[in-house]
């Protein structure tokens, strides 16, 4: 069994309640930082830990914190990103539902480190029942003196609120999230200025993912060095992986960074192998946005080394033969999966979720969806495959926020690794039997 730093107590009965959480050592990190009264020392420990943002981009958390501007007399904010909308990702939901006080403890400790007196958890609207769980836990934290005025006699004040979204993938992008939190449409902002300088209400702001903030708790408790001792290379600590698709044991797994991908897929400790004894065809390893890899390249790098669950190993070979750890949304596809059909599904998603600000993304995602629909239904040409490639290359890197890249990479990687399958759809349309149309009915009101 690998080391666990976040979910080690997940099976303790009642761990979702304040009493049990406290009995297992909960809120110790808050006691520690309030006693030490040295916020900068916390930032140093986080730097030492090597913790990288768990929301997808993997930016070093300690560094992000040290960029926070601290002008005199201006409020600072910590905003937790609990929007979790990247397809294939459900770890934050699991953590918040099962052990909500871990996030709240992390929010208090992190807010103290950053000097924030008001903090927000921005949660996607569809997680309504989780919002209720968090609100209950926050109430318990207030009642026990961990939130509010003069926390445990330290003179430190902190209010913590949960803000609800209303269905928009783009609001997971940090500046869109801030716009949404200000009561506006979720249109990403042009950077700079970065949120660290001008974020929520124009004030210095740190935005961090749920899992990132939870990881601050073991870092403060045991020190940055102890955290950095877990994992390999620049992938320190543990990572929550959301495993789904054609596997025997889907679910959320806390892994020590460095577990071989092959072990993760086939070991009974994790995914337990491919469902129904089928063969592995492909994996999307880090949420729908990262490049898809065929079985041989996800299990081994192009150089023939075992692929590991780390930022570096998954990225080995660049986009030519590698992918990204991303959010840790690990989607497994068996040999019966149609890559073309799956890609059309992803492209439909990105078209639906584009905020519409940048033309390459707004128009390009729609074109890609249409072309894929055409190919999928047996009306495609070889030129269409090239056109798809051309379009994705003209979206990547040409938009305000990385949603454009996220829409382009799945298309590029699917064509790169599975071009033959696209050609098969074009050359032998009669071989396509699995295309269903939503059936037609009449005389019903359009909602």
């Amino acid at each position, binding site marked *: 069994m690998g080391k666990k730093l976040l979910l080690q107590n997940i099976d303790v009965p009642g761990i979702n309640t304040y009493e049990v959480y406290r009995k297992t050592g909960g809120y110790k990190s808050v006691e520690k930082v309030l006693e030490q009264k040295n916020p900068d020392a916390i930032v140093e420990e986080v730097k030492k830990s090597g913790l990288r943002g768990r929301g997808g981009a993997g930016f070093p958390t300690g560094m992000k914190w040290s960029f926070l501007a601290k002008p005199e007399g201006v*409020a600072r904010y910590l905003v937790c990103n609990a929007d*979790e*909308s*990247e*397809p*294939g*990702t*459900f770890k*934050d*939901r699991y953590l918040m539902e099962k052990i909500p006080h871990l996030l709240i403890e992390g929010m208090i400790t992190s807010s103290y480190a950053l000097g924030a007196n*008001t903090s927000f958890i921005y949660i*996607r*609207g*569809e*997680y*309504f*029942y989780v919002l*209720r769980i968090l609100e209950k836990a926050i109430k318990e934290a207030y009642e026990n003196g961990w939130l509010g005025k003069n926390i445990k006699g330290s003179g430190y004040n902190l209010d913590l609120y949960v*803000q*609800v*979204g*209303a*269905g*928009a*993938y783009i609001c997971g992008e940090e500046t869109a999230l801030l716009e*949404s939190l*200000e*009561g*506006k*449409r*979720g249109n990403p902002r042009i950077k700079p200025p970065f949120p660290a300088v001008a974020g929520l*209400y124009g004030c210095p702001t740190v935005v961090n993912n749920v899992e990132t903030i939870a990881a601050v708790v073991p870092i403060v408790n045991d020190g940055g060095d102890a955290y950095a001792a877990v994992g390999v290379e620049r992938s320190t600590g543990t990572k929550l992986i959301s*495993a*789904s*698709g*054609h596997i025997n044991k*889907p*679910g*959320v797994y806390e892994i020590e960074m460095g577990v071989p991908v092959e072990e993760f897929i086939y070991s009974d400790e994790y995914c337990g192998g491919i469902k129904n004894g089928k063969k592995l065809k492909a994996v*999307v390893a880090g949420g*729908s946005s990262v490049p898809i890899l065929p079985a041989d390249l996800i299990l081994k790098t192009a150089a023939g080394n075992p692929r590991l669950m780390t930022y570096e190993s998954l990225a080995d070979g660049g986009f030519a033969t590698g992918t990204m750890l991303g959010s840790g*949304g690990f*989607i497994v*596809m068996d040999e019966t*999966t149609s890559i073309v059909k*799956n890609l059309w*599904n992803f492209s439909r*998603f990105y078209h*639906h979720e584009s*905020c519409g600000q940048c033309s390459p993304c707004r128009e390009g995602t729609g074109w890609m969806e249409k072309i894929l629909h055409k190919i999928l239904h047996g009306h495609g040409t070889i030129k269409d495959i090239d056109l798809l490639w051309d379009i994705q290359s003209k979206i990547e890197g040409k938009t305000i926020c990385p949603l454009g890249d996220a829409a382009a990479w799945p298309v590029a990687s699917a064509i790169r690794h599975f071009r033959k399958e696209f050609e098969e759809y074009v050359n032998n349309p009669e071989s396509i039997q699995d295309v*269903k149309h*939503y*059936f*037609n*009915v009449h*005389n*019903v*009101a*359009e*909602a």
Partner: protein
Amino acid sequence: MKNIEFSEETLKTIREIINRYPEGKHKSALIPILHIAQSEFEGWLSPEAMSYVAEILNIEPVEVFEVASFYSMFNLKPVGKCVIEVCHTSSCWLMGAEDVINHIGKRLGIKPGQTTSDGLFTLKTVECLGSCGTAPMLMVGADFYENLTLEKVDTLIDACKSSGKSSSYLVDKMLG
């Protein structure tokens, strides 16, 4: 059509929400209030409801519309009493979401985006709801139904029919 007006109790909750934000930043309360409005006013946001919310926040109605129209959870047209939202993204898709959607559609005689003529059901397709490990899944109100089979779907539809289960979820959940 219900009167477009919140109860005293709801208004109290709304004032509490507004007080979370710094002075002058009360527009931050818009999305939470729209959720309440949608649940109190029959599951959708009519132009009257949006104007009413604008009045409460002292902003222009168009500012409310601009926001309401951006987010997929807000319905700008009337919906059935029970809104069935089926995830049709990646993992759910791999695990049979298409069959679930077609099954519900056939049983109710509607396509995604439509409402049954008796006003009981609306069928919506939605993007990944973070239940990919328990796919396929659907949501009614605030409740997740996971690891779906067609039998489970039938049981749910029957239950909705006989109980008149309503997805005006936030009424009890947000104010409970």
